[in-house]
């Protein structure tokens, strides 16, 4: 209960959670309330917000920006969250095994991990798009792969440090199985790091999806990804800049909310994590 009370006092965590709740609600309920995002009306293009029944204005084809933004939020959330969940589960498992079992297993895993670590995320996505064609799939594969590796690296480092601690040595001397030591003794101790990291990787996922869709390698029309909306609006900046600014602000708020949650969680769970997390989140 003490933790809950401290959580309520943590300004970053509270404000981040409120923002995130609003965003998730918009992404879940919004598309359902705001009608068809593909409805076109060329006579009603480039409208600024709050005109002719368009809450956030309309784009070049006269489509409702608000209706498109909420679908964009949904796509962004689905990509970022699902990828992060997979990356966290797989990355943690790999890191636990490598860090605890050590030896040849660790060397093999570390070799592969270091290898993938040499590729910047955006480049992996570009290569994936080059080999399987543009779309959301290469984005998902790239973000998933790179984030899994990033999490595995951090978890392995943490486990290496923990595995010589008394409580692990005692558990081993007590004859507990490796599986039990990994899941009951080591896993709870690395959960804070993993939890904090995963919020940063949701942010990475959102930004990567938006950036790749912006350059045309991610979500393809007519799917309204936020990055792609910014890109479509860029040609009309002088006419009606809202076509780009609205989705841009939405991306900003989404990333801001998860970063705030991450910072809040970090301070709440373990302030010592500061430098370790910042170094890891710099990918």
């Amino acid at each position, binding site marked *: 209960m003490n933790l809950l009370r401290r959580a309520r006092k943590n300004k970053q965590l509270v404000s981040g959670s409120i923002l995130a709740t609003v965003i998730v609600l918009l992404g879940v309920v919004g598309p359902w309330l705001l009608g068809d995002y593909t409805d076109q009306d060329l006579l009603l293009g480039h409208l600024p917000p709050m005109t002719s029944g368009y809450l956030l204005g309309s784009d070049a084809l006269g489509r409702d920006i608000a209706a498109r933004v909420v679908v964009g939020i949904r796509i962004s959330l689905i990509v970022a969250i699902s990828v992060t969940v997979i990356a966290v589960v797989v990355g943690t498992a790999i890191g636990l095994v490598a860090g605890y079992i050590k030896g040849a297993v660790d060397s093999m895993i570390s070799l592969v991990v270091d290898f993938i670590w040499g590729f910047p995320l955006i480049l992996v996505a570009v290569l994936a798009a080059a080999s399987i064609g543009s779309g959301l799939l290469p984005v998902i594969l790239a973000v998933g792969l790179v984030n899994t590796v990033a999490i595995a690296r951090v978890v392995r480092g943490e486990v290496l440090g923990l595995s010589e601690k008394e409580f692990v040595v005692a558990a081993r001397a007590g004859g507990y199985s490796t599986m039990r030591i990994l899941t009951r003794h080591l896993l709870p101790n690395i959960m804070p790091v993993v939890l904090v990291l995963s919020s940063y990787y949701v942010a990475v996922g959102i930004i990567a999806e938006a*950036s790749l869709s912006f350059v045309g390698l991610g979500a393809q029309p007519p799917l309204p990804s936020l990055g792609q909306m910014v890109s479509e609006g860029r040609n009309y900046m002088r006419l009606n800049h809202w076509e780009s600014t609205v989705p841009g602000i939405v991306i900003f708020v989404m990333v801001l909310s998860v970063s705030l949650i991450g910072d809040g969680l970090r301070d709440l769970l373990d302030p010592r994590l500061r430098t370790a997390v910042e170094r890891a989140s710099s990918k």
Partner: protein
Amino acid sequence: MKIIFSRIVSTLLLLLASSLAVFAAIRFSGGDVTAARMPASASAADRELFRKQIGLDQPILKQYITYMGNFVTGDLGNSLTSNARISSLAVEKIRNSLILGGSSLLIVFLVGVPLGMIAALRRNTWVDTGITSFSVAGMAVPNFWLALIAIHLFASTLHWLPSGGQGGFKSVILPALVLSAEGIALTVRITRSAMLENIGQDFVRTLRASGFSERRIYFKHVLRSSLLPIISLAGLRVGQVVGYALVVETIFGWPGVGQILVNAVLRRDYPVIQFFSLLLVVVVTLGNLLASIGYTLANPRLRK
């Protein structure tokens, strides 16, 4: 020194593996190589002939060895779309990207480190709150969007700076600043927390007790011990800068490696994709290597 040597050897092996991976990823891709070069009306026989001409009928491993052989002798092949020699394209694109990436790294550290120090020295005042909030916002803002706003504001509306292309010093300012935004934010955070961590250490208390001035303690001793995380960040930043340079170069029409790579992927120009993505991997891997060497040199405990 032994650690450094083994790092260098393993880096070379990693690079060799990366070259094979990039090569395989592109060869196994489903796309049609001939589409970049030939009109839609070209016959199947002509397409086959073209594949044979560029050696695609050979086994993959043999193609790889031929490619690496040519690579070592400086023959990088030709672009499928423009037929330009990749080696001559490379010189120009690399130079442009180095100008952009270099100025961005410079801005990041010249702005980020001092701001982080100020925030740490004035901790829990409005100065600290201001700098910290600014850095939280800086990390959340998508850089392609920042680029559009910057172009709209400084180029289209105020006419202070060119919106892109390559017209000397002025045209590098906007792309470099946009590319630096996130890095500055991150550097501020790292510097601030590293400084704060060190200010509480015993050696600071001892220095104070020995009568050293606060300024000397902060600028000489605390800063030096805070450099470790900043240095290792610098190397890791290379990967990030390289990645986001792809996006920023595309927006500003900066004729660098990122722009040519994105265009090559969109046009399925495989030899170009292959060379330039490999180049980026080399740069990032070397960045990681330099970071780890710098870390070893700056940390007396690892120096042996």
